[in-house]
């Protein structure tokens, strides 16, 4: 059954499409669900329209934060539709459940919408061909759409615009009738079409959340409890009110657990400019009640997690008999790894404008998830979800931070209290001190090895605070998705295998950050794998391929839960060791691994990981000088992400991941003392810069016909372990705790 159907120009569509347009919508659920009559209200989510003037309008329902998704999804539709890209207009969607999930998170935009967008494009094309045939009274088989017009075998032509009225009356073709373009016929797919926002972004014209502005708007700067859970007690605003431009002081109520995406609460200084609001806030004095988290201290927390990781915990995967093998084996090896809390620190701090008027909220904001804005704001204000209109601006980076719209709630609450539009723009200090941090993790690894150093038993214990605590403060164990992120799905050929998860309390907000739980799992697994190779005196690439075993699809069966597999079935997206092997081989080949001569302070390291259904191998070259200064001349990625739409944007995502991963390896660390986060800006929460980022990152894409998989995140997990493995080979120093920071001084 075709997912595509006619839609009429009603409601929000009337603002997007001009009168008299031919509009198709494509449903986004998997086909079997569409066929089921149990989804009565299911509506199309991908929209493409053609106006009588010949302009094709495509609605981009995902958020643009640098991946290029706002260009690439419409580009695929245009290609299948044989539309001329120059005559395609992209409209950014507001938040609306109609679109299906708009949560631009989890590296799934292409994966989830590929079938729907192709079908939308191909249906439109066939309907336009049939319309021309009708007009000319010729068989449709004699008509062919090409670059925004339909051409008859006789040579006569009709532009798309002229066919609108007839196309609007065509029945939607059955799916069997659709023909999809062959690769050789693509005009745009695979061709690196420039991003639609490129001109704006090099000339300062793009509108980000930070740039949103509506007439009459006032500016807010908010003081929040420095300790998570510290309730508001009282404040003294005498001095703050004296600052020129300050007009109001407003208390935002404390959040009620679970914190979810609520405003944290605090005291807002309202002013007629950003500067005045910030100055006023400096003069504000706020008293907070004591918080139960006031004794939170990263050092003792680390010890607590690490101690737990050394004790038996809840079994979450169990193959064979690890204990028996440990008892039998002639040699066992163990090691413990640690990754601290991390902050997203997107270049654009969280920012939103909200206007409450006549019982409705209109927001303009940089959000990865406009429907979450609708949910959170409607809950905060006690209004209907449909009365929250969320306009999505460009995002100055997201990395998961901007899927959590607490900052939009703040703006909405303030606007309701003040009766005017309010802009909430976080400072960098607020961003770093009130993040939903990437969770800290302690991991204990133990292996029994045979005569060749190959593991015969493998134990991996992981203790980390769960993101589940966002929705349930009592949650202490990992969720299915956290376990399924490159941990309980390790496909290597190890006969006895156990994974155990220990409980952890939470003292700050934690949340998804680019690659999420893969970050710490990959660091422990691929560092340990390298330790085993080193202990056996074997070449890491040869060793990895050996431990991977023969090519096969591994059916993953964790204990006491389903295998998450990025919400996809293992049928469609199996865990395929052949694909992992291929990227390891390719990365080794392209990096010149076999012929590389390590020298003092200079070596290669490798890590290979499957995440977001994508297979990635990364080889990193490091140079460490006598004083322990680290340089990364080269990073080589081999990537199998299934079918690729836009090779250049895939490459740019991996180039970016190379830098993001380097930041994690070298610098990233959030710590707390007495419940307060100690870092506040880029001087003490450093990220990689031009001079310490990898000098060159090469991305090699495996040509694949497998269904599309993730791209935005899977480049991150391998980087830190590959760097640390290279450092070991260059210096003999094994890094088991991130960040590297000063650990190499006088190695």
């Amino acid at each position, binding site marked *: 059954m075709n997912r595509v159907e006619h839609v009429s120009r009603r409601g929000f569509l009337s603002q997007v499409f001009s009168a008299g347009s031919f509009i198709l919508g494509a449903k986004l659920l998997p086909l079997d669900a569409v066929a089921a009559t149990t989804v009565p209200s299911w509506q199309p989510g991908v929209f493409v329209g053609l106006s009588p003037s010949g302009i094709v309008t495509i609605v981009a329902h995902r958020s643009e934060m640098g991946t290029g998704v706002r260009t690439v999804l419409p580009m695929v539709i245009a290609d299948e539709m044989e539309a001329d890209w120059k005559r395609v207009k992209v409209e950014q969607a507001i938040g609306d459940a109609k679109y299906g999930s708009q949560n631009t998170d989890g590296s799934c935009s292409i994966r989830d919408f590929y079938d729907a967008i192709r079908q939308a494009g191909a249906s439109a094309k066939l309907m336009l061909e049939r319309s021309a045939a009708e007009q000319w009274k010729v068989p449709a088989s004699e008509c062919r759409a090409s670059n925004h017009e339909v051409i008859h075998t006789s040579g006569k032509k009709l532009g798309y615009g002229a066919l609108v009225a007839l196309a609007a009356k065509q029945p939607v073709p059955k799916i069997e009738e659709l023909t999809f373009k062959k690769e050789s016929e693509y005009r745009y797919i695979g061709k690196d079409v420039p991003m639609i926002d490129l001109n704006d972004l090099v000339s300062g014209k793009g509108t980000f959340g930070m740039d949103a502005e509506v007439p009459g708007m006032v500016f807010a700067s908010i003081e929040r409890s420095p300790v998570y859970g510290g309730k508001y007690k009282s404040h003294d605003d005498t001095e703050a009110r004296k600052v020129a431009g300050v007009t109001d002081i407003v208390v935002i109520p404390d959040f009620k657990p679970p914190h979810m995406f609520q405003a944290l609460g605090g005291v807002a200084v309202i002013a007629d*400019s950003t*500067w005045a609001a910030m100055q006023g806030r400096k003069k504000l004095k706020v008293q907070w009640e004591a918080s139960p988290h006031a004794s939170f201290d990263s050092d003792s927390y680390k010890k607590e997690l690490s101690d737990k990781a050394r004790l038996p915990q809840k079994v979450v995967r169990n193959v064979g008999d690890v204990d028996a093998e440990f008892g039998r084996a002639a040699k066992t090896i163990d090691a413990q790894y640690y990754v601290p809390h991390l902050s997203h620190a*997107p270049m654009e701090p969280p920012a939103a404008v909200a206007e409450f008027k006549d019982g409705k909220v209109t927001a303009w904001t940089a959000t990865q998830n406009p429907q979450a804005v609708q949910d959170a704001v409607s809950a905060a204000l006690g209004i209907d979800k449909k009365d929250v209109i969320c306009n999505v601006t460009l995002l100055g980076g997201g990395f998961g931070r901007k899927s959590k719209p607490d900052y939009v709630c703040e703006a909405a609450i303030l606007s309701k209290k003040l009766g005017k539009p309010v802009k909430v723009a976080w400072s960098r200090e607020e961003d770093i001190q009130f993040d939903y941090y990437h969770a800290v993790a302690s991991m204990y690894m133990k292996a029994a090895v045979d005569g060749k150093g190959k593991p015969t038993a493998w134990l991996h214990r992981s203790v980390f605070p769960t993101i589940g605590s966002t929705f349930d403060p009592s949650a202490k164990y990992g969720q299915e998705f956290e376990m399924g992120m490159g941990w309980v799905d390790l496909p290597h050929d190890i006969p006895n295998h156990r994974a155990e998860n220990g409980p952890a309390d939470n003292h700050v907000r934690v949340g998804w950050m680019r690659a999420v739980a893969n970050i710490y799992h990959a660091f422990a697994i691929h560092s340990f794998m390298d330790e085993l190779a080193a202990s056996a005196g074997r070449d890491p690439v040869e060793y990895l391929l050996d431990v991977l075993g023969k090519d096969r699809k591994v059916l993953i069966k964790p204990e006491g839960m389903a295998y998450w597999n990025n919400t996809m079935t293992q049928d469609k997206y199996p865990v395929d060791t052949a694909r992992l092997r291929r990227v390891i081989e390719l990365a080794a080949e392209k990096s010149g691994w076999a012929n590389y001569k390590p020298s003092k302070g200079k070596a290669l390291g490798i890590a290979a990981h499957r995440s977001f259904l994508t297979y990635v191998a990364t080889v990193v070259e490091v140079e460490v000088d006598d004083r322990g200064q680290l340089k990364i001349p080269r990073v080589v990625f081999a990537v199998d992400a299934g079918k690729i739409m836009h090779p250049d944007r895939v490459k740019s995502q991996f*180039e970016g*991941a190379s830098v993001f991963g380097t930041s994690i390896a070298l610098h990233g660390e959030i710590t707390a003392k007495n419940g307060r986060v100690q870092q506040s800006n*880029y001087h003490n929460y450093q*990220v990689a810069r031009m001079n310490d980022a990898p000098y060159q990152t090469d991305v090699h894409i495996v040509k694949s016909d497998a269904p599309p998989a993730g791209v935005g995140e899977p480049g991150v997990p391998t980087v830190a372990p590959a760097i640390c493995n290279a450092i070991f080979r260059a210096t003999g120093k094994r890094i088991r705790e991130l960040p590297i920071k000063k650990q190499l001084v006088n190695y």
Partner: protein
Amino acid sequence: MIQLKVNGSSKQFSGDPEMPLLWYLRDQLKMKGTKFGCGMGLCGACTVHVDGKPARSCQTSMKAAEGKTILTIEGLYAKGKQEHPVQKAWKQCAVPQCGYCQSGQIMQAAALLKDKPKPNDKDIDDAMQGNICRCGTYQRIRQAIKLAAGVQA
């Protein structure tokens, strides 16, 4: 009353002389191409040219801008004018990801090339390390600078 020139036009300012130029540009002149990233001179997102030299507008008070000539990203590529070679190279190398840091990067790079028309890698590192790109576009920034300068990549 503070007098200054922004992108060729004369302006007068009578507010708090301690206010950073950044907020004057963004909140008062509504020129939002210059971005806020840290407010501490750590990230370069707010880079403009003050009398032809790159400066962090978050660290430049209105008092300090008195009598100065300011160029922002909006003035680098004004309507009707030729595209700046740096912007052209930026497009050719498809540098931006999210784009938020790019105004600052471009202003910094344009100043570098004015100062050193044929920069080497070290010159580029020295000039650009104050500009953070959290999306990690450094490699393409380097490429684009070299392309604009006509030096070997």
